[in-house]
Structure formats: C-alpha cells, structure tokens
C-alpha cells in the first residue's frame, strides 16, 4: 500500500479540465510535481489534502479514500500551502502549540522537539513577526510535523526565499524522507527539483506527461544542450539536427543530438544573420530543457479567462 495512490483522478471546473485522469503511486520518497502555472498542480494537491472534491476517479492516502474517509486522511497528512500563513502576533512556540492542540498532541515535549528539528529553538519565544521568510517557512514545517504525519504536502515551499533559506528547507525535507516520510512537493524551481526530488512528475494541461527520476528524465531527452550568448535578440536560425528550445533577448538555446555537427552550422547561420556570438556552452540537458520539451510553452494559449479563474478560486 503506497502512501499516495490515485486512479483516474480528475477535476473539472465547468468546461476546464484542471486535472485529467491522474494515475500516481508515491511512497517514502520526495516526489516533485512540476508544471507551468495553471497546469493543475495546486488542484491536485487540494484534492489529495481533502480540500477539494474530485469530479471523477479516486485518491487514497495511506489506504484511506480522500472523499469517504476524509477525516482519517487528515489525521495522516500535513499541508503547507504557499501563502506562508503563520500568526505574526504569536510567538514561534505559540504557533506550534496551537497546531499541537488541534491535532490532539499532548504535552510540550513534542512542540520543543519539532522547534529543535527546524532550528528554531533559540527563537521559539520571539514573535513570529520578527522571523525572516526562511524561518517562517521552517515554522510552518514545524507546525506540520507536530503530529508526526506520514505524508507531507508542500506547495512551493521555497518560493520567495533567499538561497540560504531554500537550501535549509530542502535539507530539512531530505531529513524527513530519511525518517520515512513521504513528501509531495510542487515547485517551479527545476534545479531544486533536480537535486532534491527522488522522482518528479511533469504535468501539463492537467495531464501527467512523464514520471521518473530527474536524472532519468534528463537522460531520456538525450543529446546535448547548446547555449549561445548573442549580442541581441537573434532570429530563430534553423539547423538540421538541432532544435530551438529557448529564445531570449541575449541567448539562444538549442537541443542537438550531436553538438559537434550542430555548433558550426549554428555559428555560420547566426553570422550570416549578422548576429555576434560572444559565448558558447555545450552541456548535458537540464531539467528545464526536459520540462520545456515535455510541457511546452503553455502560457501562450488563449486569453486569460478571468471568469474561469474566479470560479476556480471560489471553489477552493
């Protein structure tokens, strides 16, 4: 029995299919779900945390159905949304004690313990309003850990944090996995997912397009990544055996089966277009490339549908 199992998990908002027949089995690992904005990541998390009813299909947490046994599920999970919601007028300890009381965890020992785990022991009696962003996020993790959940859901846990803060969060997440916890995390940061997740699932338009270890996904893409530094926005020069994956004001990124063939052709093509190339880099593909290849550029679709967006928000 896996910690998280879904079968055909689907959620519609009117015409929009936010999550489309998701099949997942996740157990004792850090599982990252990657996807562009609006791809269905948060909707998935909301269904798995019993905050939103699936339209079709089912999901089980530690063997309990998220609809029929919602209370059971909630005893076994913790959910940290991306909003960074800690009470700034309460101390760190009060913030955690509050959750301990709601989870029915007796005594102060466990509160002290989780504050210690999250390196907040020496600031526990300061108001959370005096905490940095990274500390607030760690405080939220302490709240989430107080009842020793089997499954932890984190929505964009490192958003808005500085480099040190991010690293600390991922280190803590890795420790939790060592303790046997299953961590389900959504993130936009591919490099972080690459380093911290045991497996990642790429979701696009509500559908799971790939699930694998980050290195396996990179390997699956194969070939090499050619990054050219240009002096201005270059035209999308087409070369046989190389595919343009990104075009930025001062950079072109190609993916090629064989860089040795593609690079000279690309340089020649750019030179004839009058573009000066100031730098060149050839490397194995990153998870970014994998992501773009799999999920594509989704935000160019139709106009932003405000009514649909509002409906989604309201039904949360």
């Amino acid at each position, binding site marked *: 029995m896996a910690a998280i199992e879904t079968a055909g998990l689907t959620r519609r908002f009117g015409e929009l299919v936010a999550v489309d027949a998701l099949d997942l089995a996740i157990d004792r690992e850090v599982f990252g779900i990657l996807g562009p904005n609006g791809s269905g990541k948060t909707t998935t998390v909301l269904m798995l945390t019993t905050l939103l009813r699936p339209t079709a299909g089912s999901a089980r947490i530690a063997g309990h159905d998220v609809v029929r046994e919602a209370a059971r599920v909630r005893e076994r999970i*913790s*959910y940290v949304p991306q*909003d960074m919601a800690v009470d700034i*007028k309460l101390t760190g300890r009060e913030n955690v004690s*509050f*959750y301990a009381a*709601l989870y029915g965890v007796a005594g102060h020992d466990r509160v002290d313990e989780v504050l210690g785990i999250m390196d907040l022991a020496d600031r526990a009696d300061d108001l959370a309003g005096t905490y940095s962003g990274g500390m607030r996020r760690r405080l939220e993790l302490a709240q989430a850990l107080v009842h020793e959940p089997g499954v932890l859901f984190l929505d964009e846990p490192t958003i808005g944090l500085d480099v040190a803060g991010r690293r600390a969060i991922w280190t803590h997440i890795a420790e939790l996995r060592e303790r046997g916890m299953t961590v389900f995390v959504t993130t936009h940061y591919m490099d972080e997912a690459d380093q911290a997740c045991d497996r990642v699932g790429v979701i696009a338009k509500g559908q799971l397009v790939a699930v694998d270890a980050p290195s396996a996904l990179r390997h699956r893409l194969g070939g090499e990544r050619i990054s050219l530094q240009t002096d201005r926005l270059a035209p999308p020069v087409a070369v046989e055996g190389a595919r343009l994956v990104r075009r930025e004001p001062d950079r072109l990124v190609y993916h090629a089966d064989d860089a040795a063939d593609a690079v000279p052709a690309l340089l020649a093509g750019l030179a004839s277009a009058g573009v000066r190339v100031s730098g060149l880099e050839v490397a194995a593909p990153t998870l970014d490339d994998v992501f773009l290849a799999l999920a594509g550029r989704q935000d160019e679709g139709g106009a932003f549908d405000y009514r649909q967006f509002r409906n989604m928000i309201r039904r949360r």
Partner: protein
Amino acid sequence: MNAVLVYFVRDMRRWIRGRFNVWSALIMPAAWLVFVGLALPTKFTDHYLDFIAPGILVLTMLSAGMQGGSSLIFDKILGFLNKFLALPSPREAILFGKILFITVRGLLQASVIMVLAVLLGATIFTPAMIAFAYGVLFIFGVLLSAFSTAIALYVEDHDGYAAINALLSMPLFFTSSALMPYSVMPPWLRTIAQYNPVSFAIDLIRSFAAPPVLWASLVGLVAVALLMVALSSFLFRRVTV
C-alpha cells in the same frame, strides 16, 4: 483542549496583541454616549443617558459583530483557512471558534462602554441588570457573528466585506429604537423599528430596567440566533467541501 477553544484562544491572543484595534473600536460607541447621550435635549425623558445606554451597548455589539466577519476573510485570503481545513479536528470548530471570539470581543467592548456609562451617570446598571444585559448581548452577538461569518464565506475580499458591512450596520442602528422611544417616532420609522432585530435586543434590555420584562422577545432572539448559527454552519459546510 476543545478545538473551538483552541481557535478562540488564537484569535483572542492576536486581537489583544493588536493594541490599537482593541481601543479604536470603542471610540464610536463612546462618542455616542458622550456627545449624544449627555448632550441631546430630549422631552420624552429627563434621564436620556439611561434611555440611550442600552441602545449604545447594543450598538457596540452590532459593530463588533458585523465587523467580525473580516477576521474570517483574512484567514481565507492569507491561507490560514486552507491549513485549518486540512486538520483532523472538526471543521465546524473553525466557524464556532470564530463566532465565540467575535461575541466575546463584543462583550469585552460592551463592558468598557457599560463602565463609561456608569461613570457618566447612568443609574440603571444594578448587578441583576448587568447580568441580564450580558445575557442579551451574548445571544445578540452570537446571532450577528453567525450572520457576518456567513457573509464572509461568500465575499472574496476585504473591500467587498467592508461595503456590505457599511450598507447594513448604520441603517440597522438608525432604524432601531436605540435613540428614541416608539412613541415619538414618525409612523414610517415606527413600523420599521418594530421589526428591526436590533430593536428586539435594545427593548429587551430596557424592559429589565422598566418591567414587565419582554420574555417572549428573549425566546424569539434565542430562536433567531440558533437559526442563524444553523444557517451559517450549513453554508460553511457547503463552501468548504
């Protein structure tokens, strides 16, 4: 500890540590007592302060109760509500904790107003009267906070909530029996005032100072309060599943 109390204690702590909010809410009812209660020349009574004091107590509860929904809006917007909903404790506890907090906050504010009224020279507040007034204000507070949290469930942002609050609070107060007895009201106002729930609470407190006590109104107020709590929890369940 009971989950309702846990949520209640959280809100109380946050509120008391807000310092400024604790006192600013008292300014309006205090101003009514001083600038209207003491200053208005009236013909129908020679002790206007005693007449208006129950009305201002109910006004204090009215603004505290109607404003209370914003506390739920903040929890909703800032992401607290989603965290709470994912907890194993009964979800209704979130709502009941809010209702209790809003009501108790209103009672604490009303206490300050009561002390102020006595200091200014109000004579109606015997111990029995104080106990009775607290009882009525509590029931009225539960009614209002259940109502305002129900609105908060459906309003998307703070501005929208403030607009609804402004739209309801002032008319409810001015069309009640807070400022003058029914006998001196123009007929159109009298009709409205008699059916205004705010008048029910005010008349009840006044009737204790000048019996017979309107026990039927008390039963009615309790019934409406219970109905409102039931409605609010029904809506809460519907919105949060």
